[in-house]
């Protein structure tokens, strides 16, 4: 079962770039697909965070994915994945500058991606302040993983 899924994913991976990915994976080729290809998958194409997702899951942090990364990504995004795992990766996705905290600039980026820059500066600032105000439990002005999990585990919509 597990393998069947992997196989299916492998075919997806292979189909992204048939010329790059060998069908025969016996000798562990050092193949990684560039972000442009990954980001053009229908699953990610319309996702405002596709670049971040690719970056988080790729080993090199630039969105170029090996097959392993690819499988990882899909297993985390699958509905079988446990919530705390998802929360962890969600945290990483929203943590744009990789400093293990979601700070204001991360929030602003998130918000602008979500609304396609349609909110005014003031509104963005206000929303970010509110978010931090709501979720920041240790009052350090930014969200740690703990804060994030605390908050997101209570969200009714956090099922993906």
């Amino acid at each position: 079962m597990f393998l069947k899924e992997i196989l299916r994913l492998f075919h997806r991976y292979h189909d992204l770039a048939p010329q790059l990915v060998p069908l025969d994976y016996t000798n562990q080729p050092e193949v990684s697909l560039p972000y442009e290809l990954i980001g053009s998958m229908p699953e990610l194409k319309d996702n405002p965070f596709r670049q971040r997702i690719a970056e988080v899951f790729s080993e090199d942090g630039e969105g170029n994915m090996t097959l392993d990364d690819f499988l990882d990504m899909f297993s985390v995004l699958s509905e079988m994945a446990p919530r705390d795992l998802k929360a962890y990766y969600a945290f990483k996705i929203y943590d744009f500058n990789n400093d293990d905290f979601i700070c204001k600039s991360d929030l602003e980026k998130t918000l602008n991606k979500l609304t396609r820059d349609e909110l005014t500066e003031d509104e963005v600032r206000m929303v970010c302040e509110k978010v931090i105000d709501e979720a920041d439990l240790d009052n350090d002005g930014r969200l740690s993983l703990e804060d994030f999990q605390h908050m997101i585990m209570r969200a009714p919509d956090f099922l993906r």
Partner: protein
Amino acid sequence: MPKKSDTARKLEDVGIEIDGDVESAEEDKKAKSKGAKKTAAGKRGKAAASEDGEDEDEDDEPPRGRRAANKKKAAHADEEDSDDDIPQRRCAGNRRRGKVRESGRDGENEKSGRKNRKGGNKKKDGKGKGKDKENDKDSDKDEKKKKNSSGDDSKSDEEEESMSEGEMAKLMEEVEEKKKLIANIRIKPWRMRRRLQVLKEAQQFVDKFEGALGKGKGRKLYAYKVMMMKKWIKFQRDFENFRTSCIPWERKIKEVESHFGSSVASYFIFLRWMYGMNLVLFSLTFGLVVIPEVLMGLPYGSISRKTVPREEQATAMDYSVLTDFNGYCKYSVLFYGYYNNQRTIGFLKFRLPLSYLLVGIGTFGYSLMVVIRTMAKNADVGGGDGEDNEFTFAWKMFTSWDYLIGNAETADNKYASITTSFKESIVDEQENQKDENIHLRRFLRVLANFFITCTLGGSGYLIYFVVKRSQDFANMDNLSWYEKNELEIIMSLLGLVGPMLFETIAELEEYHPRIALKWQLGRIFALFLGNLYTFLLALFDEVNSKLEEEESIKNASLWYIKEYYANYSANNPNDTGTPPPMDPADIIRGPCWETTVGIEFVKLTISDIQVTYLTILIGDFLRALIVRFLNYCWCWDLEAGWPSYGEFDISGNVLGLVFNQGMIWMGAFYAPGLLGINVLRLLTSMYYQCWAVMACNVPHARVFKASKSNNFYMGLLLLILFLSLLPVVYTIMSLPPSFDCGPFSGKQRMFDVIMETIDLDLPAFMGTLFSYVANPGLIIPAVLLMVLAIYYLNSVSEAYKNANMELKKKMQMARDEEKNRRNNKDSTNQVMKDLEDLLPNRSPAPPENSAEKKHDQGGKSPKVKPGSAGGGVHLQKDVSLASANPSARGPVTRAPGPRGPGPLPGQPGPGRGQGPPPRRQ
């Protein structure tokens, strides 16, 4: 990594084998008991794998070479891996197997020596294998495998022999554990590489020992279970999707909502709800009244009430006549007058008059029930306006994107809806933050309400005055055009100016737009009631005049029929039989006020539909077209400047819908076809307005969140339902029905049909029963009882509401507490620090000081911590109080005691926050 091909499965097995090898090798380096154990595991795996391998060897020769190659590659990879993350993997492995190991330790320990030895062997094997691999591929492989497998077989045999009962059980447990692991591997938070590895280990373990313990059934069962689980989840999701797709217009409404906010969507949801309710009413009426009459009643032209009178027949098919609902329309199944007063119709003995009355009453009953039920249900959904979640914005920010979206259009909508919902929340938040001059605001609100009351009173008087005048005019001749149409003109002017005036005045109040909408709705509703009042007044005048007219016609008609028969017998003296019946078209008939009323309502509804649709077409569509296309050649910016695009008028549309429904309720009894018209209207209106909104309107400047329940709309609807109930019930109970049309003709009152049924169709005791029930001695206690029940339920709901509030408060407290517990490290410490700063100054003697301090701390710290629910504010207060004290205590007489460098603010002191602060000195 696994090979993705048809040999993948085999690869897995092989990979496992290699895995075992590598592990054993690496384990050896460490040379610990742990290592020994791991080796054993690896060995076991290997045994299983090679068993497998042997089977396959026999089965299919060709792929073997490939497999061998695979194996080598995998081995390489794994070797590399293991070099990198030995510690990590080891610890993961430990963690994973911790339980198993503990249980299995005792049994294993005794064997460990033996195993260790075997591990050594193994290691040699592995090394040899590795070398072989380097040299050549196929030829050696076979042999080696044979060797391995034989060795393993023997070993496993050995192991099996040495197993006792208890070990069996333990093993069983272990196998179960592994199987569970296999089943759950997918949801383990590990990287793919490690997961595969663990999976392999677990699988080989299970493979091996399942063989030893019995069948591989368990695993299959697990696989099956997991598969079913997956299928179930998928089914649930599909079912959910299916259910959502079954909700009519859900997509359309969501689309509107995403662009225009929930307030506009609330109108469409209301519209959809109305459609549902009207559909039920429609099917009731058509199923129980209209269709039986059409199928089983007398056909058109059989009796006078079903025939167009002779003088009208020439024009009965004219378009203009038909659009006025005269001619054939008037004498059709659409209206009350068409129905016959036969007690039963058709072979089914369907009691049409009874059914007509019951459906008429049932319409109201059902509507009341549905409206009230919906209100009650909505009350516990949203309860209040807006949300009081702790994480409104955070959730919006982090969980609003739907990661399943894979369609550009959907994504666009989602972006829009996220933006809109953010805007809604921002508006709410801004309202919360607003704190201005409360007195001024109150004054302005009172002022605005005063103005509006004046306006309403004025318009009420105006309507009264105009109605009076029009009644005078009705008796006069040669009126001017204005005098003839004065009432209508005044009414439509009021309807036009009133809402605008209210909106302007409402600016004064500066309510939140959601509340402002409610006020606006209420005020316009009050204004429109005047409209309703004049309409009903005019109608009652007409009905009364018709009733008077009827008396005379009744006599004339009877006389005419008698005359006809007299003439007939006079003209044909030798015919003794019954004369041929009169042509129904020739009979003199009464005015049939019920049909007149029905026609009035139908006309009103139709004109309302026309006006609404034309308004949308001109006011929105044409305006949008002009603004859009004339903008290229205009001297100012039409889009940004004056005409601009229209906004969706929520209050107007909602009230239109509500009043329309009132018309339907009032008219449905006299024109059963009205319900059909209304259903059509709502249906088209849904599509038309959705289109119009999406095509020609722009979102409100301040998109606001509608209250989750549409209860305000429902309340208006209930009011109008009650208002429309009154005239209908009045006519049913106290006006005599027309003598020659409708299902109740010939009776004193309409409800007599019920009495008749009780008397004639039900057994006699039922009649007496009803007479008892109708006895005031029974009715009054029943009413009393109901009042008591209402009172009781009311107080119960009140109590629940209070309890709810309490719980909410408690939750809020708990939340604060949690939040504070986390920060408290800091704030508690702050207090402590201040206390420490304070204490040495206070007491002259250092030794006492320390004691006192200790005491103080003992007293204070437990108090502060549990009291943290009070929030940081209280703590801050404590602090400020405490720090105020020393200065009041008088001058410091001696230098501070020899205390260590206390923790400076911002600099974490030792033991900060945990337990009592360290004592100094």
